[in-house]
Each structure stands twice: as C-alpha cells, then as structure tokens.
C-alpha cells in the first residue's frame, strides 16, 4: 500500500519536477541537461511576446476574479434565503457548472457569444448615428466573461460555506443595536465573509490565469500566457517554455496556499 502511494505521488510530481529542473538548464535543448543556470528565466522575461501575453492574462484574471467575487458573493447571499426544492435545483446547477469539462464551456461560450454578436451587431449598426458602428467581437472581454462564468460558482460555494457557518445571532445583535440592514451588512456580514470572499477571489484568479481551453476558444486574436506557451511548444519545447511554466506554477501555488490559509483561519474561529 505504501509503495503504491509512493508510486502515485512519483507519477504525479516527476513531470512537474522535470519541468522545474529543466527550466534551470544551461543548455539550448530541453532534452539534455547541461549545467544549471537562470538565463532562460531572464530570456523569457525579456521576450516582449511573453510579457504581452502575461499582462493580458493578468488583466483577464484580475477582472474575472473581481467580477466573480462580487457576483458570486451576491448570489451566495441571495441563495441562503431560498429553501426547499428550489434550493436543491440551484445547488445542483452550481456544482454542475464546476464539473462541466472546460472544453464544453469553451465551445458553449463561443457559440453563445458568436450567435449573440450576430444578432446584436446589425441592430447596433442600424441604430448607430455616427459613421462607423462599433462591432462586437471576440477578444479580451469575451474571455473575461467566460472566466467569470465558471469561476463564479467557486466563489458561491466557498462563500456559502462561510455563510452557513456564520452565527445568525451576530446579525440579530447588530440590528438590535440600532444598525439598519445596510449598516449591518457593511459592519458585520461583510467582515465576517471577507476571508471567504478573498479566498474565492484568489482561487478564481488562479483558475482564470491558468486556463487554456476556454481562453483558446473565445480569445479571438488575443494571446494569453497559456495560449502563448501552447503555440510556442509547437516549435519545440525550449527551456524558455519550461521557465515560464515553472514561474506560472510557482505563482499559482502561492495563491492557492494563501487561499487555503485564509479558509483555514476562517474555520478555526
């Protein structure tokens, strides 16, 4: 049993370890290790395409995570009032949206966006008074929309768990002490939920930042970091790609750990 679990862990982590190891490769080729160096990290960070893709990814991740946190928290707060069979239906729908494969979300979002654009663009062109009507098309905003959709469920699940664990009497105590419903929300509910919302934000950020499949479908001409990595791999695996991979992994891991710590601390109280 012990051997078996060791084997499982090796199987899981050896490829990742190899990527990190080879990102420090001093040689030109990814396949052979010739001494250690950080020069590929420098090279990757000097590459304007990488930096460009990185900023696109960061912007998308930030916007999507922010929107997902706001909408997810509002949804979680609204859902706590729902009872009975309706609640079960909503619960199911939230979990389904987490479990649906990325490729399905990707295709579905693409089809949905394109058909909406097809309907809306002629209308906008009709009512537009200026010379050149704006045209809705795939781009950064469509990626943000798609990412917000699937990360929102994560926020809902995390925030709802926190709401469920929250003492209802705190809210009653606040209203009893003359606080209006809005004042209670601002001074009691929100601070109580803050760690969960932040954890949800960080998880959403990581998921959006790392996502390839959905971005690939709806990004249009834009290049996110995962898309850049994917396209450069087609020209062969270079230590530069390994370096990017190692950096992305490091950053994601850091965010996940912070999110976990937030939820843990939350739990202990």
């Amino acid at each position: 049993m012990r051997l078996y679990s060791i084997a499982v862990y090796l199987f899981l982590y050896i490829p990742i370890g190899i990527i990190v190891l080879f990102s420090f490769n001093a040689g030109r080729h990814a396949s052979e290790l010739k001494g250690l160096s950080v020069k590929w990290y420098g090279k990757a960070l000097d590459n304007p395409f990488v930096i460009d893709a990185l900023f696109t990814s960061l912007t998308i991740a930030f916007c999507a995570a922010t929107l997902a946190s706001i909408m997810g928290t509002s949804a979680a707060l609204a859902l706590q009032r729902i009872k009975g069979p309706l609640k079960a239906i909503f619960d199911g729908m939230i979990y389904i949206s987490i479990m649906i494969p990325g490729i399905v979300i990707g295709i579905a979002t693409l089809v949905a966006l394109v058909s909406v654009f097809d309907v809306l663009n002629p209308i906008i062109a009709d009512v537009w008074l200026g010379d050149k009507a704006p045209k809705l098309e795939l781009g950064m905003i469509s990626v943000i929309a798609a990412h917000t959709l699937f990360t929102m469920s994560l926020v809902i699940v995390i925030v709802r768990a926190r709401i469920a664990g929250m003492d209802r009497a705190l809210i009653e105590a606040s209203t009893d002490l003359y606080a209006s419903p809005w004042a209670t929300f601002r001074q009691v509910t929100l601070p109580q939920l803050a760690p969960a919302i932040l954890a949800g934000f960080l998880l959403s950020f990581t998921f959006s930042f790392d996502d390839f499949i959905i971005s690939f479908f709806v990004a249009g001409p834009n290049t996110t970091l995962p898309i850049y990595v994917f396209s450069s791999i087609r020209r062969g695996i270079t230590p530069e790609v390994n370096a990017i991979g190692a950096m992305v992994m490091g950053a994601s891991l850091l965010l996940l750990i912070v999110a976990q710590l937030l939820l843990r601390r939350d739990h202990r109280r």
Partner: protein
Amino acid sequence: MTSPAQTDTPDIRFENATKRYGDVVAVDSLSLAIDKGEFFSFLGPSGCGKTTSLRLIAGFEQPTEGDVLIGGASMVGTPPHKRPVNMVFQHYALFPHMNVADNVGYGLRQLSPRPPKSEIQKRVDETLELVQLAEYGKRRIWELSGGQQQRVALARALICRPTVLLLDEPLAALDRKLRREMQIELQTLQRDVGITFVLVTHDQEEALSMSDRICIMRDGRIVQSGTPRELYDRPLNRYVADFVGKSNFIPGKIATVNGRSIDIESDGGMLFSCNPSTEQDTYTVGDSASIAVRPELISIGPPGSNAEALGTDVVIPGRIQNRIFLGEHTEYLVSTEKYGEILVLSPKYIESVRGSFERDEDVAIGWKNETALALEDT
C-alpha cells in the same frame, strides 16, 4: 432599595399577542404588563414560548395576532433597529472581528447623528467600568473567559441606556459558581441603572433569586405570574408547584371545604387537612385533588414518634429508601406504604441535634396541616 418610582403606563404590554409558525402556536394570546424598573422573568421549559415572547419584544418576530407595546406605543411592524430595547444573547453574539471596546461602542456608533468619537470613547470606558472590565478595551473577544464575554455582552446592551434590557438565558453557558456571582451582579446592576430587565430562563433558581416578578409559561400560555414568594408558597396548580422548587404530591379527593381549611381524603384512605392555594372559591367536594407538601417542611424522626415528638399534625411511618448528603442539608427519599415515595429535606442544624438516619432505617415523618396545600388537578 432604590427601586424607581412606578408609573402608570407599564413599560411593556402584551395584548392578546399570538405567534404562530404554520400550525404550531408558539405564543397563545398572551396578555401581560411589565412595569417600569421591574426585574421580570419568563420561566418555563424549552418550547413553552418564553423565548418567542422575548423575541416579540425585541422585534425579531412579529405577532401573528394581537399587539406588543413598548412605553405605550404599538410596536407592530417596527423593525428591531427602531425599538428602544437591547438584548443580551444566549451565546453573547459578540462580533469576533472587533475588539472589546468596539463591540461595546457598536450601538452608539449606529445612532444618527453619530456622537463624537471622544463621547463614544468616554461612554465605552464608563460602561466597561460598570461591568468591571475597565482595562479590557483593547482585548480581542476570543481572549476573554466566558464570564468576561458575558460582561462585554451586558455592557454592549447597556451602553445606549435602553428603556428595557432583554436577557435570553444569559447565564446558561457559565459554570455554577460563576452563575451565582453573575446573578447577584445582575441584580445589583439592575438596581443601579434602574432599567427594566426582562429575563428568559428555564432555571427556576435563577428566576427565583433575581426577579421581582415571574411569569411561568406552558404551551405558549401563562400558567401563573407573581412574586417569587407567591409562586413558591401559593402555586396555583401542580405544574407550578413542580416547576418552582420541589414538592411531594399525594393524590386524593376533596372531602370537605370549610373556609380556610380543606380536607382531602387521600387514595390511601387518610384524611389530610390542607390550606387552599388560591383565594378563589374553586374547590368542589368530590373533585380529585392533590396534597402538596414541600420537602423542607417535612420533619423526620425515629420510628414510632408521635405528633408531639415530631412537632407536627400528621405522622406517617416509612423507611429510608435513599439518602443524599448535600452539605447544608440531607435529602431523604422515604418510602411509605400508602402514599408512595416522599422526599424529605432535613437541615444540618436539626441533624446535629436529633442525629441522622441511614438507608433502610425505619422512620416517622410528618408535617403541620397549614404547610400542606390543596391543589386541584387540572
């Protein structure tokens, strides 16, 4: 005692207030008045409607029918944050993300116009002093012991000087010794601040020791309300006698009624003379009734003692079935042939003179006629 002058308008009035949850009636057309400056308790087992009554005052529940008035004004439809009452919650409900001073000052910060910072600070310091936590303002909530948290909750509820302070089983989470101390402190505090206190508790000792007046509830209705002494000495029925203190009940039938004395023929065949528990003329010959005697009013002596030796009117032979030593007194469970098991509480000072009894020893027990109450079965 510096109890504030009683005014004509009671502080709180329930007028046929009913609260229903679907088919369940939590509070059933409750009518009662709580006077200004009174320490009033709702007492009863869980599910009797006492907490719902309190929540009707606080505004967390709205009556399905009837009205709840505070200071003469109807509160129907008024949300909790617009009512001049504050509450101490059962598990304190202190805000964990704020320190002690911010918790205590919370109510003041919600007022509009909001008092200046220095004023809030001053009032917080004063109130913390009142509950003997002067140096604790900067502490976090979870650094405090249960008793200290209790005081913070009290300070937080008192700082806005509400007309009425509501207390929902405030001492239930404390250990016995601390509970005793807090009972005394609460009582002193209530006299000092002169605010009406409304307490909800299932602990009869707590209610008896602190309240000016107690309302005993059952199934959403009032069974009896009165001063602690009235409830203890003149319980209206078996439920009250059983709930407030301990009591022995001997079943029987009313044999004769003559003014202040009622004779009950017990099922065991003996005739007991009892006092009526109500002034009202409700006793009917032939009705089934119980003879109720408090265990501390029963004398116990060696077997064969006569009434004179025991200093009683009634003498019943029995045998000690169980004995529990409780320090200041000893509790005997005496089994009798005709009247079942009878609980006797014998104080230490009597034991020190007459000696005590062991298990399985034969004894004689008895009581004076005027200490027995006739309770009609309802």
